[in-house]
C-alpha cells in the first residue's frame, strides 16, 4: 500500500519535471548549438593559426594573444571604442534628460515632439550611416553646402575623410539615431517621481538646478543606470554605422574592435588571430556588463 502510494507520488513528480523540461528544452537546444558551442569554439580557434580553408588548424598556444598585446591596431581600435562609449553615452543621455525635464509636466504638442524624437530610433543603424554619409559628403553634402551658402567655406571639409574629425562626426550621427531612445525611457522614469517632493522643495525655495540635482536625478537613478548600461554595451559592440560609412578609415581612424575583428577574420582570413580579437571583445563586453550588474544590485535597493 505505502509502496504504491510512494511510487505514484514519484511518478507524478517525475512527470511534472518532464513537463517543465519539455517547455525549456527547445530553446535550450538552439541556444547551446548556436551560442554556447560557438563561444567555446572561438576560444579554441584563438589558439590556432588558420586561414579558414586549410583542412588542418595549426595549434599555436597563446601566440595570438602574445601578438595581441603588441598590436598597436588593437589598442587604437579599443581607444576608439572608449571615445565612442564616453561621448556616445554622455551626449544622448544628457539630451534625453534635458528634453525629458522640459516636457515632463506635459505640454501642448508633446505627442508630436515624442514622435519626432523617436523617429530615427526605428531606423536601422545602416540607414543612419547612409543618411549621414550623404550629410557629410564633401562635394554636395548638405553640411558643406550650407557652410558655403553662408560664406563659411573655410569650415567645409571632407568630414569623414579627415582622420581627426571622422570619429566625432560618426558619433554625432550615432547620437542623432539614439537620443530619442534615451528621451523616451527617461520620460517613463519621470512619471514615477513624487510630485509632492517637488512641491515641498518649491515651498522651501529650491531653485531649478537644486530640484534637478537633489530630487529628479536621484529619482531617476535606476532608469539612468539602465540606459547607461544599454548605451555602454552598444558602444562596445558598435559596427554597422562605421562599416557602412568609413569601413574603419581613413587609415585606421575609425576602426573599432568589432570592425577590426570582422576585417581580420573574414576579409584578411586570419581566422585564428581574428578569434583572439573576438575573445578580447567578449571579455570587454562581459566585464562592462558585470560591473553594471553589480552597481545596479548595490544601488537598486
Amino acid at each position, binding site marked *: 500500500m505505502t509502496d504504491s502510494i510512494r511510487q505514484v507520488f514519484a511518478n507524478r513528480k517525475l512527470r511534472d519535471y518532464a513537463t517543465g523540461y519539455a517547455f525549456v528544452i527547445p*530553446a535550450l537546444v*538552439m541556444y547551446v548549438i548556436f*551560442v554556447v558551442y560557438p563561444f567555446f569554439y*572561438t576560444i579554441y580557434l584563438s589558439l590556432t593559426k588558420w586561414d579558414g580553408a586549410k583542412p588542418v588548424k595549426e595549434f599555436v598556444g597563446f601566440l595570438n594573444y602574445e601578438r595581441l598585446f603588441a598590436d598597436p591596431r588593437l589598442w587604437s581600435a579599443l581607444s576608439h571604442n572608449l571615445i565612442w562609449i564616453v561621448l556616445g553615452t554622455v551626449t544622448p543621455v544628457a539630451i534625453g534628460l534635458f528634453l525629458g525635464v522640459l516636457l515632463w509636466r506635459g505640454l501642448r504638442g508633446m505627442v508630436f515632439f515624442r514622435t519626432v524624437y523617436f523617429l530615427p530610433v526605428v531606423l*536601422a543603424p545602416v540607414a543612419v550611416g547612409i543618411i549621414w554619409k550623404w550629410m557629410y559628403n564633401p562635394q554636395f553634402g548638405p553640411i558643406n553646402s550650407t557652410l558655403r551658402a553662408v560664406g563659411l567655406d573655410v569650415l567645409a571639409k571632407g568630414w569623414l575623410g579627415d582622420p581627426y574629425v571622422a570619429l566625432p562626426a560618426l558619433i554625432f550621427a550615432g547620437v542623432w539615431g539614439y537620443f530619442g531612445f534615451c528621451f523616451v525611457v527617461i520620460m517613463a522614469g519621470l512619471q514615477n517621481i513624487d510630485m509632492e517632493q517637488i512641491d515641498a522643495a518649491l515651498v522651501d525655495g529650491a531653485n531649478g538646478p537644486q530640484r534637478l540635482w537633489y530630487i529628479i536625478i536621484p529619482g531617476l537613478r535606476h532608469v539612468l543606470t539602465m540606459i547607461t548600461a544599454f548605451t555602454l554595451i552598444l558602444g562596445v559592440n558598435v559596427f554597422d554605422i562605421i562599416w557602412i560609412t568609413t569601413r574603419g578609415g581613413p587609415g585606421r581612424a575609425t576602426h573599432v574592435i568589432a570592425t577590426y575583428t570582422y576585417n581580420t577574420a573574414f576579409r584578411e582570413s586570419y581566422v585564428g588571430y581574428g578569434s583572439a580579437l573576438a575573445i578580447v571583445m567578449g571579455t570587454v563586453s562581459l566585464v562592462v556588463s558585470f560591473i553594471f550588474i553589480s552597481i545596479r544590485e548595490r544601488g537598486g535597493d
Partner: protein
Amino acid sequence: MESHVGASYQVARRPRRPARYWIARAVLYGVLILFALYVLVPFMWVIFTALKSNYEIAQDPLGLPPNWRFENLAQAWNQGKFSRYFINSVIVTVPIVLLVVSLSCLAGYGLARLKMPGRMLIFYFFLVGLMVPFTAIMIPLFYILRDIGVLGTYWAMILPQTAISLPFGIFFMRAFFSGLPYDLTDAAKIDGCNDFGVFRRVMLPLAGPAVAALVVFNFMGAWNAFLLPLIYLQSDKLRPVMTGMMFFTTRWGPDYSMSMAGTLIVMAPIMAVYLVFQRQFIQGLTAGAVRG
C-alpha cells in the same frame, strides 16, 4: 537670447506675469523645435536629394527639387533589385520572430512557473548569453553553418539570429509570467487543465502586451540586422534589405540621386509602420530598458 533664458528663470518663481510667461514658453518651444529640426532636417535632405536629378543636385544641393522626380524611386527600385531584397527580408524575419517568440514564451513560462530540478541554474545559463556579444561567436558560426549545410540558404541567418535573441526573450517572458497571480493557474488546474493547457488557455492570452513588445523588438532586430547577413547571406539571391542597400549605395556611390532614392525606399515602409503603430513601437523598443 541669454536675456530670454534669464526671463524663463524668473517666471519659474513668479508665474503670474503674463509677458514673462509667454517669453518662457517661446524659449521652451524654441529649444524643442531646435531638436526636432536636428532630427527632421537630414530626412528632409534625403527626400529632396532622392527626387532630384544629379544635375539638379550639383546646381542646388540644398533647395527643393525643381521638378519632383518620383520616377527616381521606380528606377532605383528596379535597378536595385529591391523587390528581391524585401522578399528576402520577409522570408528571414517572419520565421525568426515566430521562433523567438514561441520558444521564449515556452521557456520563460517553464522557468517562471514549473517545477524542475536546476531551474535557476538553467535560467542563469541563459542570462550569461545576454552578455556574449555576437562578435564573440560570429567566426566559428560561419564554419558551423557551413558544416551543417545551411550556408547558402535562408537558414544561415534564421538559426543564429533566433539563438542570439533567445536570452533576452526568455528573460523578458519569465519576468512577465512570474508577475501573474497564482490563483488563476490553481483554478484552472482544479478544473482539470494540465500544465500545457494552463499555459495555452490561461497564461498565454494574458501575455498579449508582453508578446507584442517582444514581437516588435525582435522584428526590428532581425529586419535591421546587418553584420549577420553580411557574413552568412553573402549570395545576392539571399541578400536582405540592409546588406542589399549597402551593395546598392556602394555600386551607385557617386550617383547621389540614385543612392538616396534607394535609401528612401528602404526607410519609408518602416517609418510608415512606426507612425501607425507608434505606441507599440515605443513600448517594444524600450521594453528592455524600462522593465529590466
